[in-house]
């Protein structure tokens, strides 16, 4: 590992400087504290071409640091109407606006607050940015008593504040774990973002993937020939390492299982190694499955955009399952896909009654928990294989790795998949250490780059948001010599690299099925010399040198 910071961090302050966080709130009241957009703390706006693809309002060029955001003349009316519609449509929204007693249990649970000290990043206050307008516009007390009732007027500055803070929330829902009322703060951010979109205010890192998904089926804009090229490349690579020739079925009608992954897995490192791991595992099992060039995205940046968009993007997976005539769907190491599948799919696009109850063709296990969505998480699938002794594994092939596990926010908190990944990891590697208990499982800390914030221009915000997670990684690095951070989410695999480079230098990020495939003893394989990354396997270092 190079001792120099990677180029995207070259201009960032040193960790020690960033850690000098002032937790004292400003002197003036929060309603009178304006936002200050400066490079590093906000994301670039959605490009007009992407809004046009999606038929969304007000496509134009604009910049957050400029005074004039080029809003429609009747912007105030649009927001009022938009809020009214949503209060009528979503009881949860109305409830979350009404029931908060501002107890503050969530205040110090947010990674962005812990890393910045900015009181408006306390989830309670971030929600107040919206609630104060709700009170002013929609409650009697607020209309009459104004500020006394915690209400305020809708102004351009409020809109700017929303844009600033609703894009400094990764919808990770750690705060919700601690809320005595169970307020889902991510849904408040989602509502804030929906309202902003009505005015043409969004960020490109979230909206270009959404637009790409409409054009080509995936966030990255990869066309079917590029999709096939990537998977063929992984198969070739795996064959070079193992000597086993691997077929990769694509768009195969009548296959038993449709397999869906985030597109980052077949484009960006280190996800590509996990992707190679999937095809090796399925080949070894002789699984009757298929990839799809249409449902070529598990991720759903609609979740970071609007309910309508979640529904539109999620529908593609099920439409493709129907077209191909599969029995059920298996999903890869993706994060927020599982929030969508577990908590929205059934209401929005369900029931998927044209599919069958998922049953593992290898072990016969019925995945009853997936009865309504017909979609099984690969970690459940693989843990079940191991439990039934269906895989021959040599964990010593991962002996170069001293591993800790980052629970990805959505699989952990929106799905409760906590044991399976640990069970799999412990079976494929010999060195595993947990981070402190208030930073894992339901209490896991976000990577700081979820919900569309994983870009570079907001690096200051990302590094601050990544501090609690980075700090916990650093702890096990110093205590146990941990050198590998395993995770099962493509956003994590992309953004935790930066978090580790900055806060826990020397720790490498890995997917879980990369380690599974390293340990997997395949039928007919040759004496493997390297792991999937081309590095010599433990004990093979000398042979490599000769």
């Amino acid at each position: 590992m190079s001792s120099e910071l990677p180029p995207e961090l070259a201009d960032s302050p040193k960790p020690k400087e960033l850690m000098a966080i002032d937790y004292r709130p400003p002197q003036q009241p929060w309603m009178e504290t304006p936002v200050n957009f400066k490079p590093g703390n906000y994301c670039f706006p959605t490009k007009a071409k992407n809004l046009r693809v999606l038929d969304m309002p007000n496509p134009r060029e604009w910049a957050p640091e400029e005074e004039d955001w080029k809003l429609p003349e009747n912007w105030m009316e649009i927001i009022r109407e938009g809020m009214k519609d949503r209060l009528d449509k979503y009881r949860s929204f109305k409830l979350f606006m009404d029931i908060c007693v501002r107890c503050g249990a969530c205040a110090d649970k947010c990674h962005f607050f812990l890393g910045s000290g900015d009181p408006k990043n306390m989830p309670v206050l971030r929600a107040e940015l919206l609630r104060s307008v709700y009170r002013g516009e929609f409650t009697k007390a607020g209309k009459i008593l104004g500020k006394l009732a915690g209400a305020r007027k809708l102004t351009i500055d409020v809109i700017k504040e929303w844009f600033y803070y609703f894009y400094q929330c990764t919808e990770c829902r750690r705060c919700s774990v601690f809320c005595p009322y169970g307020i889902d703060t991510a849904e408040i951010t989602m509502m804030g973002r929906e309202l902003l979109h009505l005015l043409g205010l969004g960020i490109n890192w979230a909206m270009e993937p959404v637009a790409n998904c409409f054009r080509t089926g995936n966030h990255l804009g990869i066309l079917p020939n590029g999709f096939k090229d990537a998977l063929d490349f992984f198969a070739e690579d795996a064959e070079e390492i193992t000597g086993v020739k691997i077929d990769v079925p694509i768009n195969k009608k009548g296959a038993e299982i449709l397999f869906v992954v985030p597109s980052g897995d077949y484009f960006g490192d280190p996800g590509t190694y996990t992707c190679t791991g999937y095809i090796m595992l399925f080949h070894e099992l002789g699984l009757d499955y298929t990839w799809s060039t249409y449902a070529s995205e598990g991720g759903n940046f609609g979740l970071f955009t609007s309910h309508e968009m979640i529904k539109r993007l999620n529908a593609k997976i099920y439409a493709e399952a129907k077209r191909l005539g599969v029995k059920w769907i298996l999903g890869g190491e993706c994060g927020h896909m599982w929030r969508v599948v577990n908590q929205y799919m059934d209401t929005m696009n369900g029931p998927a009654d044209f599919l069958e109850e998922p049953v593992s063709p290898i072990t016969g296990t019925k995945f009853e928990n997936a009865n309504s969505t017909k979609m099984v998480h690969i970690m459940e699938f693989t843990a079940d294989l191991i439990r039934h002794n269906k895989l021959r594994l040599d964990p010593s092939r991962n002996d170069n790795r001293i591993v800790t596990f980052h629970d990805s926010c959505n699989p952990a908190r929106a799905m409760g998949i906590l044991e399976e990944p640990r069970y799999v990891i412990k079976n494929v590697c010999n060195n595993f250490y947990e981070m402190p208990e208030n930073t894992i499982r339901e209490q896991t800390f976000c990577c700081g780059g979820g919900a569309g914030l994983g870009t570079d221009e907001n690096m200051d915000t990302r590094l601050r948001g990544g501090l609690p997670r980075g700090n916990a990684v650093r702890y096990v690095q110093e205590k146990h010599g941990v050198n590998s951070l395993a995770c099962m989410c493509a956003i994590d695999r992309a953004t935790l690299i930066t978090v580790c480079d900055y806060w826990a230098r020397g720790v490498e990020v890995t997917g879980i099925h990369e380690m599974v495939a390293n340990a997997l003893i395949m039928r007919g394989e040759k004496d493997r010399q390297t792991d999937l990354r081309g590095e010599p396997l433990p004990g093979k270092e000398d042979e490599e040198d000769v």
Partner: protein
Amino acid sequence: MPELELGGNTYEVDEDGFLQQLDKWNPQFAQDYAPLEGIDGELTEDHWKLINYIRDYYEEYGIAPMIRKLCKDCKFKLKYIYEMFPSGPAKGACKLAGLSKPTGCV
């Protein structure tokens, strides 16, 4: 849209400096852009090998190649690519090749 003046020509670029009108690309653009990416002097044969590989891949597939594939096909180690393009393959080499930045879980 920000404009960038290079060698007497004006190009539309995005906030990160990626070329917006892909058909405006020409070898002179890459050469003129090089100093802004921390590359001194004339682009070498290896620089061009990588830039041309990226452009050919884009021509066929409509997207930048995976870094793993690019390293393998060009027979360059990733470390060497960083030596040639200090901002790396995605943000340096692709920028000079006139492609836009990939977005999503990457």
